């Protein structure tokens, strides 16, 4: 009997050893070999990052990533907007030793102090993992400094139309004061015009030597077997900015041959060559929801991976330049509306074609409305902005990083809404979730007090100045 007991003990031990080894092998496989390492994820990711959950090393850059390494990873993607004027709380503000006491309550030098990943239970809008009244740490005396703020709850600082911790550009008091009493619709509502083609020669990064800006004729098309070229392709190319700016067939269709130093024609070149002339647009695209997977070294986003409602028959599609800009035609009108609606299927998107904005878009598209008066999906979500291309120059371009203009929605006030609408109407509209759902078909039913507060502040200051002058 004791022998039998020993034998069963032994086999149990062997079973335990084998299972442990299998477990270790399984973990090792997932850790070092498997592409999908989500088994190690401590919790689901925010909607901002879920697309790159297969690229752990985008953020976890080391085996035991330090806080500084995490910070660098955050800035690699988000660094361009963590500076003034796009950030009213940039790191530079907190590096001064005189603010050491503030950092002790909340370390504003590290993004992860307020934005932790894998914590869905404590994550609120915009990936915030601090309690919403976090402003209290540094601004507890605001009621004494500003009479207008007396008695307000710190949980309301972040309310729509009040303050954004980072981008406060459309909400600071003097901005509100400058926009007091503006009508609902501006006298001349018009969106910024295109300018890329007119400025090619002065743009340092544009390959003007390779593609001299001389309009090309159909006889100059340099595709092989040009005589067999589809007439629709020919017409599309001739009618676009490509032919009129000297960009020939080979500019897009010739790609590097692997391991060799020459180029070779291909019928399906993909979009690698877009970057030659549209580097900035591609860079911005790869910072947004549509292209961020590619910048993390992953395959392009497939529509089915989106967390927003998408159309059933588009779920198999993958996103790259050509998803919205159909090759050869590159119709920007189509890219601005129809391309979006091919996939997006939420209530806001579904309501667009019943909206006054779409009505204006149709009028402009059929020549009845003046240029710049139509409002497409892109007018608000990928607007034309005057973008700083380096420290010394800017150019008007379509910002293909739709995140730059998305959430909180006050980010779109300056880049989109104010071209056509007054600020007070804009603040009210952006705070009205029902109005947003029906794509601004109607008037806002909520009212934001910020403008009145700014007016009272102005009147108080004027009164004080007058009293001082009397003295």
């Amino acid at each position, binding site marked *: 009997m004791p022998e039998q007991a020993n034998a069963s003990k032994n086999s149990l031990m062997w079973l335990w050893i084998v299972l442990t080894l299998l477990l270790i092998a399984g973990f090792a496989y997932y850790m070092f070999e498997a592409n999908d390492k989500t088994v190690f994820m401590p919790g689901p990711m925010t909607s901002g990052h879920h697309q790159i959950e297969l690229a752990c090393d985008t953020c976890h850059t080391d085996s035991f990533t330090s806080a500084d390494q995490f910070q660098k990873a955050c800035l690699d993607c988000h660094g361009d907007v963590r500076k003034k004027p796009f950030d009213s709380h940039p790191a*530079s503000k907190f590096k*001064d030793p*005189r603010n*050491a006491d503030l950092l002790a309550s909340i370390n504003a030098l590290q993004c992860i102090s307020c934005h932790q990943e894998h914590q869905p239970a404590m994550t609120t809008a915009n990936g915030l993992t601090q309690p919403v009244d976090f402003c209290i740490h540094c601004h507890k*005396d605001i009621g004494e400094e500003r009479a207008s703020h007396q008695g307000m709850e710190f949980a309301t600082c972040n309310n729509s139309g009040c303050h954004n911790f980072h981008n406060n550009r459309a909400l600071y008091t003097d*901005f509100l004061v400058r926009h007091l009493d503006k009508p609902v619709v501006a006298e001349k509502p018009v969106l910024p015009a295109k300018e890329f083609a007119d400025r090619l020669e002065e743009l340092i990064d544009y390959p003007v030597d390779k593609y001299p800006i001389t309009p090309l004729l159909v006889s100059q098309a340099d595709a092989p077997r040009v005589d067999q070229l589809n007439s629709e392709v020919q017409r599309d190319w001739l009618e676009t900015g490509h032919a009129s700016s000297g960009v020939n067939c080979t500019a897009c269709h010739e790609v590097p041959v692997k391991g060799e130093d020459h180029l070779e024609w291909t019928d399906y070149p993909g979009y690698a060559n877009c970057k030659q002339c549209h580097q900035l647009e591609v860079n911005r695209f790869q910072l947004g929801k549509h292209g961020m997977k590619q910048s993390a070294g992953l395959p392009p986003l497939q529509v089915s991976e989106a967390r927003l409602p998408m159309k059933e028959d588009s779920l198999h599609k993958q996103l790259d330049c050509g998803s919205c800009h159909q090759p050869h035609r590159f119709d920007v009108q189509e890219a601005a509306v129809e391309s979006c609606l091919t996939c997006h299927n939420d209530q806001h998107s579904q309501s667009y074609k019943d909206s006054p904005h779409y009505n204006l878009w149709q009028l402009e598209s059929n020549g009845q409305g003046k240029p710049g008066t139509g409002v497409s999906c892109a007018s608000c979500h990928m607007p034309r902005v005057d973008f700083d291309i380096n420290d010394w120059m800017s150019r008007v371009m379509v910002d293909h990083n739709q995140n730059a203009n998305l959430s909180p929605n006050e980010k779109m006030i300056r880049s989109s809404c104010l071209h056509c609408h007054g600020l007070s109407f804009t603040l009210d509209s952006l705070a009205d979730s029902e109005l947003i759902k029906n794509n601004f078909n109607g008037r806002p039913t909520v009212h934001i007090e910020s403008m009145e507060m700014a007016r009272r502040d102005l009147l108080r200051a*004027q009164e004080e100045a007058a009293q*001082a002058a009397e*003295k």
Partner: protein
Amino acid sequence: MKYIRKSLVTLSALSVVAIGSSVVIAADYDKPSISAKTMADALHLVMDSDRTIYTRKIVNRLVKKEKVIKASEHFEDEKALVLPAQMFRFGSELVAKRAEKLDDVNFSYSLQSLWPINKQNAPKTDAEKTGLKYIAENKGKNYYTEETLGGKTYFTAVYADTAVAPVCVSCHNDHKDTPKRDFKIGDVMGGVVIRIPMDG
């Protein structure tokens, strides 16, 4: 052979002396020879001179005398000149950023006031509070002290910031957020605080 060896020995000895002396020569300008106070005074002299020139020759001239442009806190939105206080602060932020890459260069500075338009520029530490009060009450004198912040010891110097041009006075007296509307030219309006770490 013996001669060659001797020459090599001599050459090596000479090289050692040469290398040694070059170290000595480098050490002459590299060894610590100024106090934290002298360094702060020198830094302040440069800051204050640049600040005075910008305020007088650019802002006051173009805004007050020639009346061709405004100066505004929101200079980008209003297509205006950068305010002198902002010019100073932007410089200080750039210094902080550049100094991060220099191991031996470590100091910070800021412009503060007992009557700040932006409340974030009010004195916060005890040294700042005492220093700003001292320079306002003792015209022409600077304030020097040591203080510990975030576990580090600093030499802290406070210098008076005086209204040098009519534009200083008019902007501060008229600003909607100002807590004081009766500044006159020559008044101490605030102070420059320079900090140098004492423990490396």
